[in-house]
């Protein structure tokens, strides 16, 4: 047989490029022979999203042989563009950390040690403990206000966690908890940002950051208040610095001069807890001097609505107050309405009953001098802030926990909504109110309603007052009902029918008078009511205020189940220094979880951007992804209940729960997205949902994330036709991939953009539809400006406009049924300044009402004392730092972060330190009425003494993220902080309590 040269080369096994070179006469077989011994190793790269603050930075990991060998910033990520903060880079140490538990652990009652157990045993023990607590403490009926209600609930289980796990895990956690009838459902958002959703909702109709990290570049002014963004959201600084390079001005209002202040054009120091006084004076200045945007107010706000004539405010108290219950009857906080229930409006802005007039009158008391007396900020500096806010447009306001963690947390943020509505700074590019969420998936854990008062999607969870679907709809409206029906179809499948109210009757009902927050769950554990706790990715033994209550509560439980990547202080509470483990009868089960790099699923950042995390390295030992643990745990619970014939257990038997072992996260994400149940197709957008049970969606806001069967959370398209940082093809944002909320308000009443340079959306008269670079935030893109739907820039508020005054209002449909119900804070329709519960001074506005009158504190008098300024003369403020995060459970296990900051400390002003003979490095005792800890002092000039109501007042500051576990150990600051709570949302007053400081 004749073999030509080409055939000869082919017989040598050469193809492609080797063949070509050989064909040219090069000695390729020699090359091939020389590399015979080269061994190829399979490896992979994977993308994920950082674990720490909610910037949602992209990372890329490199895995070889199942081990992480490199972690770096993703350069094509729209938020961090390849950069990472010290914590983000530091996480690379976690997958290979020798501190990670590799097997489930068991601590027997009274024991002083852990024992390794199998997963089967761990899951079985956990399921049986949950079942025992549930079965032995079931409340089928409850008499409230003399009337018997069917409530089908257990108050014996506390269910905590969600902000550090993926969306799909959040969904399964809350789905499991609601099936079990648990009332105490909560997560870290309670402690961090729970004030944000109600506050923003009250002003705008939705509870989330209005603009995006990538929109910051378009602003002319950034007001950062109550945040040290440079340390706590470092990648958020990227957009700010980009704006600064383009000429934007930066203002930083905070209690200390920090790394954030350093890049600001103006820094103003205020006393912790006085933001309403400070901002109230700015609102007053804008109104008195007519610096507001009148056209915007007319078109897009309720400024011209008429308020109920019976509305009053007198000496610190709004009309309708009941001192006994510390609550308001809110009837007088509504509008004057016509026969159809629609608000009456005036054409005269200064009509005595107009919202505008009420607001103006209200804030007259807030002069710069008054604000200065209260906050300690000089008058001229407050005025400078106000003038800059007026001068530089558009302007954005950014905030974090410095605003939320107060007994007036909700009202603090409400002030921002008022300022921005007055200035026309909402819905526009470069404007907005940007809530900087602090945990990687705290937006998700909030979206999924891992809070006692919500279903997924911010729908109110039913109480005895809304115990039937009819009552619930009457209170919440038909808009909410549609979303709820879709949720119930997702949860109950074919067991949710129109005839059985879509299974609503099977659900547990809360007692509407109960505060079921995690704070109360520990108090109830001390009381012996809560018997079992299941805690996932949260470490309340470090992060809760007034930790002594957590100590006592955990020690009084029958059982505790902790699921985490490290054995946290919470799991090991019985090992804390000075504790006699033999006296603690709590059975503890520890379930080792996979780190974020080791599991897949989505999470959502502050800008509502849902991103996919791919799984990289293998988890250590037998550690498992949370989604797998949850899946197995609830399957075991169902198995335990499978033969029950009790009515209370029907819900567990009827619950949909048939998730596969592989690709679980995508299966769950599809359920969250929702289906057209007639065609079996995934929903493409929220508008495809029906209210008749023919569609399902586990979370209405996320409908579309899996539209057309494409997992859009995986998208990484970097094109931006707007050049405004919209990036419409990068991942997916709720709702419907909209990047800037309320963007209809960026146009005038005719749909023409106010700012051509920064235009987002517009009415296209020739095409007869709304169009834009962003998804238009309108009820229907075909309903033009001439229609009622074309004039609803804040369509999720029942009035359709921005709410300067958070009136009590239900929008009625043609049949006089509630269509939608706006949110009104329980402590007032307008923010009023009240002193923190522990304060060094009197309330300068109304001496008789010093603190927020709706706060109930102490709740447990023997455990919650209130310190006085005589015994505890200094104000303590606490927060995080760049090198350690939250409880430190992760960061204190990263050696190089510990090298950067190795222990907790207290920052003391120079003048105070001199008075107390303290120097940097001196050991000091910090004492409040709740406890005492010993730390080193750091003496600085960053928080200067302030003159408050004529008295020199000192503030000291401490980081809070230490405990007795991890590679770096130290006393927990939260033994001394106060657990007084905002009455709207039960967030604690971390930012202001009273302490004494002495040399140790």
């Amino acid at each position: 047989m004749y073999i030509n040269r080409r055939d000869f080369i082919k017989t040598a096994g050469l193809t492609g490029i080797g063949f070509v070179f050989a064909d040219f006469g090069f000695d390729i077989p020699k090359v091939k022979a020389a590399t015979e011994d080269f061994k190829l190793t399979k490896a992979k790269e994977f993308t994920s999203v950082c674990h720490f603050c909610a910037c949602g930075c992209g990372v890329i990991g490199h895995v070889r042989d199942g081990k992480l060998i490199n972690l770096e910033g993703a350069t094509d990520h729209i938020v961090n563009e390849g950069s990472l903060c010290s914590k983000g880079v530091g996480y690379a140490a976690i997958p290979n950390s020798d501190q990670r538990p590799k097997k489930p652990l068991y601590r027997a009652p009274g024991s002083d040690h852990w024992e390794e157990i199998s997963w089967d045993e761990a899951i079985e023990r956990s399921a049986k403990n949950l079942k025992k607590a549930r079965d032995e403490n079931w409340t089928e009926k409850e008499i409230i206000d003399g009337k018997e209600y069917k409530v089908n609930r257990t108050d014996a289980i506390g269910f905590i966690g969600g902000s550090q796990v993926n969306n799909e895990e959040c969904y399964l956690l809350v789905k499991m908890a609601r099936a079990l009838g648990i009332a105490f459902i909560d997560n870290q958002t309670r402690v961090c940002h729970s004030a944000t959703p109600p506050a923003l909702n009250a002003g705008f109709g939705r509870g989330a950051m209005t603009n995006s990290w990538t929109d910051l570049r378009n602003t002319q002014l950034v007001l950062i208040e109550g945040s040290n963004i440079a340390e706590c959201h470092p990648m958020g600084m990227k957009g700010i610095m980009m704006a600064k390079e383009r000429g934007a001005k930066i203002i930083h209002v905070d209690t200390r001069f920090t790394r954030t202040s350093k890049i600001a054009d103006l820094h103003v120091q205020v006393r912790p807890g006085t933001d309403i006084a400070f901002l109230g004076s700015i609102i007053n200045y804008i109104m008195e001097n007519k610096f507001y945007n009148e056209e915007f107010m007319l078109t897009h706000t309720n400024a011209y609505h008429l308020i109920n004539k019976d509305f009053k405010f007198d000496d610190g108290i709004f009309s309708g107050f009941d001192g006994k219950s510390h609550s308001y009857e809110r009837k007088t906080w509504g509008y004057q309405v016509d026969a159809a229930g629609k608000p009456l409006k005036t054409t005269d802005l200064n009509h005595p009953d107009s919202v505008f007039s009420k607001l103006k009158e209200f804030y007259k008391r807030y002069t710069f001098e008054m604000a200065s007396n209260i906050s300690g900020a000089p008058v001229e500096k407050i005025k400078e802030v106000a003038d800059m806010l007026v001068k530089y447009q558009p302007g954005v306001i950014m905030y974090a926990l410095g605003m939320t963690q107060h007994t007036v947390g909700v009202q603090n943020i409400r002030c921002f909504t008022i300022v921005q509505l007055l200035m026309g700074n909402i819905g526009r590019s470069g404007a907005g109110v940007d809530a900087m969420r602090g945990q990687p998936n705290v937006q998700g854990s909030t979206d999924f309603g891992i809070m006692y008062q919500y279903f997924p999607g911010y729908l109110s969870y039913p109480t005895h007052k809304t115990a039937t679907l009819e009552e619930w709809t009457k209170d919440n409206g038909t808009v909410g009902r549609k979303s709820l029906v879709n949720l119930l179809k997702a949860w109950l499948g074919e067991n949710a029918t129109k005839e059985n109210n879509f299974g609503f009757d099977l659900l547990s009902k809360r007692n509407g008078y109960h505060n079921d927050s995690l704070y109360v769950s520990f108090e109830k554990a001390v009381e012996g009511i809560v018997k079992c706790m299941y805690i996932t990715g949260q470490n309340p033994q470090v992060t809760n205020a007034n930790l002594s209550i957590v100590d006592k509560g955990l020690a009084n439980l029958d059982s505790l189940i902790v699921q985490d990547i490290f054995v946290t202080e919470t799991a090991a509470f019985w090992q804390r220094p000075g504790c006699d483990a033999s006296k603690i009868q709590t059975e503890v089960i520890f379930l080792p979880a996979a780190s974020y790099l080791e599991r897949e699923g989505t999470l959502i950042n502050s800008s509502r951007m849902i991103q996919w995390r791919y799984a990289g390295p293998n988890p250590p030992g037998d550690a498992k992804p949370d989604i797998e643990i949850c899946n197995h745990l609830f399957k075991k619970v169902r198995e335990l209940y499978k033969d029950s014939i009790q009515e209370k257990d029907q819900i567990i038997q009827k619950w949909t729960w048939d998730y596969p072992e592989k690709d679980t996260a995508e299966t769950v994400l599809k359920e969250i997205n929702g289906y057209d149940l007639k065609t079996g197709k995934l929903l493409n957008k929220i508008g495809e949902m029906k209210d008749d049970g023919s569609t399902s969606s586990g979370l209405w806001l996320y409908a579309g994330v899996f539209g057309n069967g494409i997992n859009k959370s995986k998208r990484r398209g970097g094109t931006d036709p707007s050049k405004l940082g919209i990036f419409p093809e990068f991942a997916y944002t709720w709702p419907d991939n909209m990047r800037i909320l309320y963007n209809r308000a960026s146009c005038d009443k005719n749909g023409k953009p106010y700012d051509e340079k920064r235009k987002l959306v517009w009415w296209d008269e020739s095409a007869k539809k709304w169009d834009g670079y962003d998804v238009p935030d309108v009820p229907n893109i075909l309903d033009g400006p001439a229609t009622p739907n074309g004039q609803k820039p804040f369509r999720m508020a029942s009035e359709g406009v921005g709410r300067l005054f958070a009136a009590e209002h239900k929008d009625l449909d043609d049949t006089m049924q509630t269509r939608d119900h706006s949110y009104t804070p329980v402590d007032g329709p307008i923010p009023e300044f009240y002193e923190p519960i522990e304060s060094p001074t009197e309330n300068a506005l109304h001496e008789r009402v010093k603190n927020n009158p709706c706060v109930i504190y102490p709740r447990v008098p023997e455990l919650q004392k209130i310190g006085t300024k005589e015994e505890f003369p200094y104000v303590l403020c606490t927060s995080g730092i760049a090198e350690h995060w939250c409880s430190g459970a992760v960061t204190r296990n990263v050696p190089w972060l510990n090298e950067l900051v190795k222990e907790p400390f207290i920052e003391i002003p120079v003048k105070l330190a001199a008075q107390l003979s303290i120097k940097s490095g001196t050991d000091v005792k910090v004492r409040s009425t709740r406890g005492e800890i010993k730390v080193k002092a750091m003496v600085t000039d960053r928080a200067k003494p302030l003159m408050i109501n004529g008295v020199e007042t000192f503030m000291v500051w401490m980081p809070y993220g230490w405990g007795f576990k991890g590679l770096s150990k130290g006393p927990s600051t939260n033994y001394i902080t106060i657990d007084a709570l905002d009455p709207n949302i039960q967030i604690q007053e971390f930012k202001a309590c009273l302490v004494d400081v002495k040399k140790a």
Partner: protein
Amino acid sequence: MTNNKQELTNQWLAKHPFLKDIGEMNLSIIQILEKIKTEPLHLPDLDFYKEAFGKGIPVLQNEELQKSLYEPVEQVLRTLTKVLSDAQVPAAFKKSCQALHFYAENNSTTEILGYVLRQETNQVHAFCKKNSLDEKFANFSIWLSISHVVSQNSPAIKLWIEEKDWERNYCPVCGSLPVLAQLKQANDGHQRHLICGGCRTSWTYKRIGCAYCGNEELNRLRLYETAAEPDMRIDVCEDCHTYIKTYIKEDQETIYLADWATLHLDLLAEKEGFSKKGSSLLIN
């Protein structure tokens, strides 16, 4: 050739003696090209072309620009094939080279240059067949000539491609597919740069995903690494069964961005069942 380049290449060949003949051929090419200087191109007004470029039409697909390219490219091609015809290269290679040189000396090359530039592969094939030219060699040498002219005009052409939104997997200058990739440090990560298999231009591209079919499903993308060549890895796509060699460091571009220098990695990738793309030597 600079001493440094020469030294690096010699060092590489000393470590990889099995690449000697290919390496020497490439050294010859570099030396030849370094001696050829061309006149600056007359580039058309950038503003007139911006819109088309924004829509994804590469610079050299501009008809006017193509016309101005023919003469200098033909000049380079003639010199290149002439010198290579006399160089110490394998006989088959030399034969192909001589054939093309003979053709270029006696005919206008405008027609085939146009086909190659516009990537009209069928016409290239027919043309070579008709004129008894080795198609692969023609492709290879014409792209070498084009890349040399482009490199001599790179500051001017660079102005054209300073367009951040070029997210495409083909070259913004000539439209060819990439043949190599490089990861360069950017902030705390690495940005991926693709290197054109035609004109050798480098452009940034999305960091993760197949450079050929666009597959972004990371569960169907893999890497091959070998301890023998720690600075170069092979990124493979299980969707389209292609691979691209990626240089993961900086400073040794002379070696790692010369495709021939890691030919052995190509052979290993091909042995695993993956195909190379983007090389001007391959008729894709």
